[in-house]
Every structure is written in structure tokens, then in C-alpha cells.
């Protein structure tokens, strides 16, 4: 009898997660703790980083079967076998379908649209230029990634981190990356959200380095008031123009603008309430935990991950610099009416980047109020990075 008991215990132990726990998994679990710490104690984009880091923990617990990357391999017909995922997938596999089939990011954009006020941009449409200039970070990083010998799909996924827009980065990388690539969507999302949280640390030194005291002190004219009709026409016009120009950006821009139209119309308050609260929160949880699940040991503990981290911060830095430099051009062209500091807000990261512009401007002149002026390029950056995403998706 004792023999049977001993055998049972041994076989239980052998089939338990403990036996399968390798050094790689342990390191990954420790890394997930670091991100949980950053989210909880340091308030680093906690709404996303906490679900992502917990997904990271779950996926690296061996034998749990919550997430199986093999199910998402593209078959001969050029797409993933959804039926196979539905029948054989674990919980996180099912949730990950929403990422893989590009459902979650546009839904998040719907919620963002209901929370965004485009009036600073409508009042000063030239801000679009700053939103476009800051996207240069994406494309210059693409060159950097290519020089480091990465594949086109990997380079595109890393470059989009420079768009400083989490949902867009997830959207592009989940569409571009192949199972043979050495990085995954989770890695991109982790880098993107970490750097977005670090915007107040990354941006100010670059902004100060590139501008003079005189430029930083520019007080801008007050923006004109925007009529309700203009606010209603704006989302419709943007959807038509952008979707015709870059059709692959239509899901992101279309949903963003739908959310905004619901808000500005003033007649869909119930839908606005759901889109910006319940729906957005549900999608955020699904998105976070399933994206976190893609960060399995093999995909993180390699050289490519280090490249993502380094190129990601470069992408942010170049984006900021290009925005500020373009702001300087506008400063010269308008004979000193534009404060170049608002250019850095063009990287999106709404509203953090605009707050940084305000903060840096206020350091020179505490009564200078740049926030609303910076919101123009800031929301233009969201549209700009969605367009850049569309371009990357259609070329690569």
C-alpha cells in the first residue's frame, strides 16, 4: 500500500507545474513581478500594465495550457485556423483571438473617440503638421531596425512603438508578426506602454535641448471657439479622407471617429457612456491579459527583446525631436507665434504628451498656458499614427 502511495505522490509531483518549471520560466515570472510593481507602486499605465503583467505570469506557469502559440500558426490558406483555436484553445487563446483578429484595438479607439475633444485641432488645423512630423520617429526607427538585421515585419512592429499609441502598436504588430519572428505582440505592447508611462521622463530633456529659452517662453494666442456643427462634421470628414487615402487605417480611424461623433452629436449619451466605460473596460481587460500571455520565455529572453527595448526608446526620442524641430520651423514661419514645445505632443500618448508640453512651458513662464495648444498636435498624433499604421500594413 505504501508503495502505491509513494508512486502516486511521485507521479503527481512529476506531472505538476513544479517539475516543469525551468529557469527561463522563473526569470519570466520574476520579470512579470517587476511590471506588476511598476504598475501598482509607480502607477505606470496601471490599467493596461497590470493585466499585461498578470497575463505574463499566467502564461509562464508551465502546463497551465492557458495560451498555446502553436494554435495561431498561419495555415496554407494564409490565415489562422479559428475553429481549431475555439475547440482546442485555453481561456487566454480564446481571448487572444480578439487581438489576432484585430477586434480589440478598434474597440478601444471607439472608447478613446468618445473621450477626445478635437476642438483645439479644429480651431488650429495647422497642428496636424506637428502630429505628422512626430510620426517620423516611426519611420526612422524602421531604418534602425533594418540596420540591425531585422525582418520587415519585425522592423515595422518595433517602429510603430514610436507612434506612442498602445492600441495602434498592438494592432500593427498582431497583424504583421509571423510565428517565425523572434518577437511577439506582447513584447511590443510591454515596450509601448512602459515608454508611454515614461513620456514625462523621456521628453523634457530632448525638448529643452532643441529649443532656446526665448522659444520656450512664447505665449500663444487664444484659440477661437469651435461651433457644434464643425465638431460634428470633423469626425465624418476625417473618416472619409483618411479611409479613402489609406484604407488599411479605416478600422482604427473609423472607430475613433465613430466614438467622437457619438459624443459630439449629443443624442447618443447612452452609447457614449457604454463605449467609454463598460465596453472600454471589458476590452482593456481582455486585451491586457491576452497580450501579456504572448510573452512566453522563448520570445522574451533573447537578443531581439533587447533590440525592441533600445529601438523603442529611440523611436520615442526621434518622434519627440522631429515634432519639436517642426515646431521650430512653424515658429520661424509664423514669426514667433508658435511655441515649438507643442510639437513634442505630436507623438500622441494622449494626454500625457500635451501635459509635458504644458509643464516644460510653465517652467519658463508660469503663467503660460500651452495645454490646449498642445492638445491639437496631441490628438492629431493619434490620427497620424493610425495613418502611419495603415501605411506600414499596406506596404509590408
Amino acid at each position: 500500500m505504501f508503495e502505491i502511495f509513494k508512486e502516486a505522490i511521485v507521479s503527481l509531483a512529476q506531472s505538476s507545474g513544479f517539475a516543469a518549471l525551468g529557469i527561463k520560466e522563473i526569470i519570466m515570472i520574476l520579470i512579470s513581478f517587476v511590471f506588476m510593481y511598476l504598475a501598482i507602486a509607480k502607477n505606470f499605465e496601471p490599467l493596461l500594465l497590470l493585466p499585461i503583467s498578470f497575463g505574463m505570469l499566467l502564461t509562464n506557469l508551465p502546463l497551465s495550457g492557458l495560451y498555446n502559440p502553436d494554435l495561431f500558426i498561419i495555415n496554407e490558406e494564409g490565415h489562422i485556423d479559428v475553429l481549431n483555436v475555439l475547440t482546442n484553445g485555453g481561456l487566454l487563446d480564446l481571448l487572444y483571438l480578439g487581438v489576432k483578429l484585430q477586434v480589440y484595438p478598434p474597440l478601444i479607439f471607439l472608447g478613446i473617440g468618445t473621450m477626445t475633444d478635437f476642438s483645439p485641432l479644429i480651431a488650429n488645423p495647422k497642428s496636424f503638421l506637428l502630429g505628422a512630423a512626430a510620426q517620423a520617429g516611426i519611420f526612422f526607427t524602421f531604418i534602425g531596425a533594418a540596420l540591425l538585421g531585422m525582418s520587415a515585419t519585425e522592423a515595422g512592429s518595433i517602429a510603430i512603438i514610436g507612434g506612442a499609441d498602445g492600441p495602434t502598436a498592438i494592432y500593427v504588430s498582431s497583424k504583421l508578426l509571423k510565428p517565425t519572428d523572434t518577437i511577439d505582440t506582447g513584447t511590443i505592447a510591454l515596450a509601448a506602454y512602459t515608454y508611454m508611462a515614461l513620456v514625462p521622463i523621456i521628453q523634457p530633456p530632448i525638448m529643452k535641448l532643441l529649443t532656446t529659452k526665448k522659444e520656450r517662453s512664447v505665449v500663444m494666442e487664444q484659440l477661437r471657439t469651435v461651433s457644434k456643427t464643425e465638431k460634428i462634421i470633423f469626425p465624418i470628414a476625417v473618416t472619409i479622407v483618411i479611409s479613402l487615402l489609406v484604407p488599411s487605417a479605416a478600422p482604427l480611424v473609423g472607430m475613433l471617429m465613430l466614438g467622437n461623433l457619438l459624443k459630439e452629436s449629443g443624442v447618443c449619451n447612452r452609447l457614449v457612456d457604454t463605449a467609454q466605460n463598460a465596453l472600454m473596460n471589458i476590452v482593456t481587460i481582455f486585451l491586457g491579459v491576452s497580450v501579456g500571455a504572448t510573452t512566453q520565455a522563448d520570445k522574451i529572453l533573447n537578443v531581439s527583446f533587447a533590440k525592441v527595448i533600445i529601438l523603442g526608446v529611440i523611436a520615442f526620442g526621434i518622434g519627440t525631436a522631429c515634432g519639436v524641430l517642426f515646431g521650430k520651423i512653424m515658429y520661424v514661419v509664423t514669426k514667433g507665434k508658435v511655441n515649438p514645445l507643442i510639437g513634442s505632443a505630436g507623438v500622441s500618448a494622449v494626454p500625457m504628451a500635451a501635459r509635458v508640453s504644458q509643464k516644460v512651458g510653465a517652467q519658463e513662464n508660469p503663467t503660460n498656458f500651452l495645454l490646449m495648444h498642445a492638445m491639437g498636435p496631441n490628438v492629431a498624433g493619434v490620427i497620424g499614427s493610425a495613418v502611419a499604421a495603415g501605411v506600414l500594413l499596406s506596404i509590408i
Partner: protein
Amino acid sequence: MEMQMEMSYVFAVVITGLVVVFLGLVLLIAFISIIGKIFTAVDAKKKNKSAAAPAPKAVQAPAAAAAPVAAADDDEIIAVISAAVAMMGAADGKSYRVKSVKAAPGAASRSAWAMAGLKETTNPF
């Protein structure tokens, strides 16, 4: 890892990307500016019409009402400041007299509430 990209392809991606992003946003600038111009013109027309039609009485009344409100506002502010100073004096056993209250130069462009709002929005870092 896939095979390395050719540099000509890389630059093609970069140039296409930048051109398309700028082109898209410039198109939007043109569109939004035109709409903005139309609406400011329409608004100006409406204002002209409404200014010409009703009697000037309506314009005068709010102006007259506005002045005492501003004065009352100032009195209130002085009362609040005096009360705060009196409290401070009571705490350390001295008495103070408020001789004058002047707006600080430069800060006049924004009210205390606007400053408080500004502080709150930029508070997180």
C-alpha cells in the same frame, strides 16, 4: 529570423510612409480650414443680422449689470483675504491690517480658479 531587407526597400518604406502621412494630414488641414472659414463667415453674418435687428436697449442692460458684479467680486476677494490674514494673526497672537490688495503683474491674465485647474491637470508629475 527572416532574411535581411534591402536598403532600397527600407528607404522606399520610409519615404512612402512620411509622404502619405503628411499628404493625409495636409488634406485634412485644407478641408478643416475651408469648413472653419465657412462657419466663421456664417457666424459673422448671423451676428450682423442679430445686431442690426433688436433695439440697443438689450445690449446696454447686461453691461450695466456687469459692473457691480465685478465690484462685488473684488469686495469678496478682499474680505476673504482679510479673513485669512486675521486667522493667521489669531494663530500667532498678532493683529494685521490689510492696507491694499493688488493683482500680481503677469498673473492678471488668469483667475485663481483657472490656475487651480491648470495645477490639477499637470499635477501627476
